[in-house]
């Protein structure tokens, strides 16, 4: 176990950071979050072609760059810091990993190169209107037909679901329940029998879709009924990635709060010279650094395929999520009234913190998962 980034990784972070600083100032975030598709195709192309970011976690055999969770974590942390509006989490983190974990070799060769190049946007549809993130909550049915399967049911909270060219959908055999007989399927976003509708997200930088499947024809990924293990692994990987995204956001908030506290004068002093503010900032720093350690550690163990990855993914998700929400609230508090205005940027991260808190399951859900593994 390594507790630091290599020089190459630090260099890579600098490149990503510089790109995002230029391409994703909050003026752009504000512009794009008001659009329906929620991203800038030009920036996506540059990010794909110049930086190769969608290729990061995909093996070279499938057109990827062959990096692991640590490098993906670096990208996510910087995306979280900059709040870039782009379908990265949906396509690169969720869909690509789902396919990697589930599909047959031929399917991977077929599906992944276009995702790695950024040309195809994919997403993963797991959660349903019941909002559950555990596999047993899935009610979507996949019925066998002559030439494949037909999906019926409803998915919700599907990240970039209206935008995606390719949907990876988790469904179960008719009559099954619990963790058994789950499979993953693919179909085009605009396939017959698919009705997509944008949901109104609290965090406008994260587009969500409600998707109904009415006997929509879909292709099975990998073996029938063997979906539980690859789905769980995918969700663990997603939790690790999200934890890293969240600590990036929390870091941005921490820096904003400290910068403001040093600059803002009241009573003839910078408010940052008052212990009430200084001590809050020290506690914030502790919170964020501890969450970073958890997020980095989870990425590292994930890259080693450690059997404890699932527990540590949940640990990191819970730690980062709590730290992010607390830091966002404190950042607003330190800004005072200004921090509650629309024009101040703090609320952009605040809302991202709240949506990330719930996405993939609340901290309390992940703490329970952790206890199932560590608490006997």
């Amino acid at each position, binding site marked *: 176990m390594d507790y630091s980034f290599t020089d190459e990784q630090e260099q890579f972070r600098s490149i990503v950071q510089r790109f995002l600083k230029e391409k994703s100032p909050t003026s752009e975030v504000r512009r794009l979050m008001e659009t329906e598709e929620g991203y800038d195709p030009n920036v996506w192309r540059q990010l794909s072609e110049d930086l190769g970011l969608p290729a990061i976690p995909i093996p070279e055999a499938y057109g990827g760059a062959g990096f692991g969770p640590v490098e993906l974590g670096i990208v996510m942390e910087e995306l979280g810091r900059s709040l870039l509006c782009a379908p990265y989490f949906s396509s690169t983190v969720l869909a690509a990993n789902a396919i990697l974990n589930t599909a047959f070799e031929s399917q991977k060769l077929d599906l992944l190169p276009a995702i790695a190049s950024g040309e195809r946007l994919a997403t993963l549809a797991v959660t349903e209107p019941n909002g559950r993130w555990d596999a047993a909550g899935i009610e979507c049915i996949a019925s066998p037909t002559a030439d494949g399967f037909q999906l019926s049911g409803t998915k919700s909270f599907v990240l970039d679901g209206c935008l995606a060219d390719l949907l990876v959908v988790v469904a179960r055999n008719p009559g099954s329940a619990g963790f058994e007989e789950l499979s993953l399927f693919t179909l085009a976003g605009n396939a017959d029998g698919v009705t997509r509708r944008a949901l109104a997200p609290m965090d406008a930088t994260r587009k969500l879709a409600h998707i109904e499947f009415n006997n929509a024809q879909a292709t099975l990924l990998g073996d029938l009924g063997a979906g539980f293990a690859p789905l769980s692994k995918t969700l663990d990987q997603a939790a690790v990635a999200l934890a890293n995204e969240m600590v990036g956001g929390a870091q941005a908030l921490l820096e904003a709060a400290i910068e403001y506290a040093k600059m803002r004068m009241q009573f*003839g002093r910078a408010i940052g010279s008052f212990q009430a503010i200084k001590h809050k900032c020290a506690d914030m720093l502790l919170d964020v650094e501890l969450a970073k350690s958890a997020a980095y550690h989870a990425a590292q163990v994930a890259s080693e395929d450690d059997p404890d990855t699932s527990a540590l993914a949940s640990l990191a998700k819970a730690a980062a999520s709590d730290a992010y929400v607390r830091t966002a609230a404190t950042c607003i508090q330190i800004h005072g009234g200004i921090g509650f205005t629309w024009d101040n940027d*703090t609320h952009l991260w605040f809302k991202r913190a709240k949506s990330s808190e719930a996405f993939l399951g609340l901290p309390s859900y992940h703490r329970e998962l952790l206890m199932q593994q560590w608490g006997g």
Partner: protein
Amino acid sequence: MADFNEENVRRDVRDWLKANWDPNAKLVDWRNKLADSGWGVPHWPVEWYGKGLPVSLGQVVDDEFARANAVGVAKTGIRMLAAATLLEHGSDFHKDRFLRRILTGEDTWCQLFSEPGSGSDLAGATTRADFDGDNWIINGQKLWTTSAHHAQFGLLLARTDWDEPKHKGLSYFVLAMEQSGVDVQPLRQMNGHASFNQVFFTDAKIPPEHLVSTEGNGWQVAMTTLAHERRGAGGLHGTSREGPRKGNIYDEERAEIATVMEPYKWYPQRAGRVDLIVERAKATGTITDSHIRQEIAKLLILSKSAEWTARRARAAQQQGRPQGPEGSLGKLAASNIARACAHVHTLITQTDVMLTGQESPLGGTIAEILVSVPATSIAGGTDEIQRNIISERVLGMPKEPRFDTGPFRDVPRNIVT
């Protein structure tokens, strides 16, 4: 006149209402009648639209108005803060010029105190008033000004002397809002509402007779306004009475109240809506979880204890006892409650936390709670300021040394662009 007693007052107001009250009158006409009779503000002086009644007997008058379903004078918004301030510090000219139209509701008022550079530190205002021989010329910017966009007048705190210490260089004015040097812009909040305004002054003019009290005495006058605000004289006093209320005058009053109350419609969400918690937990099925039960119980304990604490403070006040510490704690308790509510609503709402708007839980109410509660610990004095006040004024702890006591010109302050 000096011989007030409950029986006389009750009989007099009842007789007067019997003779005068007409639910089909025009609102302004009726309120002019109230002003002339003294029954609209019976605790005000006889010279100024009142009857000089002790405050305690005001309740008797209120009761009779309620019994008759009679509409009273305009009381919502900042106007009553303006009236209270002018009654205490204003000249006869001010009272004559402004008070009647406050009571009739013809003039709406706003409060121009906070600035981008002075929030917690209100006395650090840098909006300037310079006398050009004929008028005071106002330049600067105010913030958090509720209802500025439809106000006729503003209560303005501005700096007239930069060489005095900061509390001594301020003066208090009545500013006419409808003039070219005043630019009112809505200020949107993170929850999407735009309840407040920013007000920009570019060579706005105030005639010398609109100075309230004396030059340099503005902070003292502002303290009066703020004391009335804390006592709840302004702002939210505006829900119309229910009952069999048909008639033109009720419609006019309802419209008036609706306009004034519009900025406050998200305030219940800002407080966290503890009232929704148990039902929501039942509806979502989360009430069975022992962890969530603990969190709900903690919240209910906090909220009920704060409620009883407020009642203890009120009971002491009513009995004329010296106010104990419990009277100063409500605002800080409210912040803790709002935060705990947001936490518990999140636990209960789970993945639906990601949504907003009609399709989201309770038609967007939960989402509005989550993006509104951060204001509770800021608006009307941050938690940090409250803790300072409590520790110094209630607990008698030593004050922090100050660094802003010299000439204001030399006090480090924010550069507002």
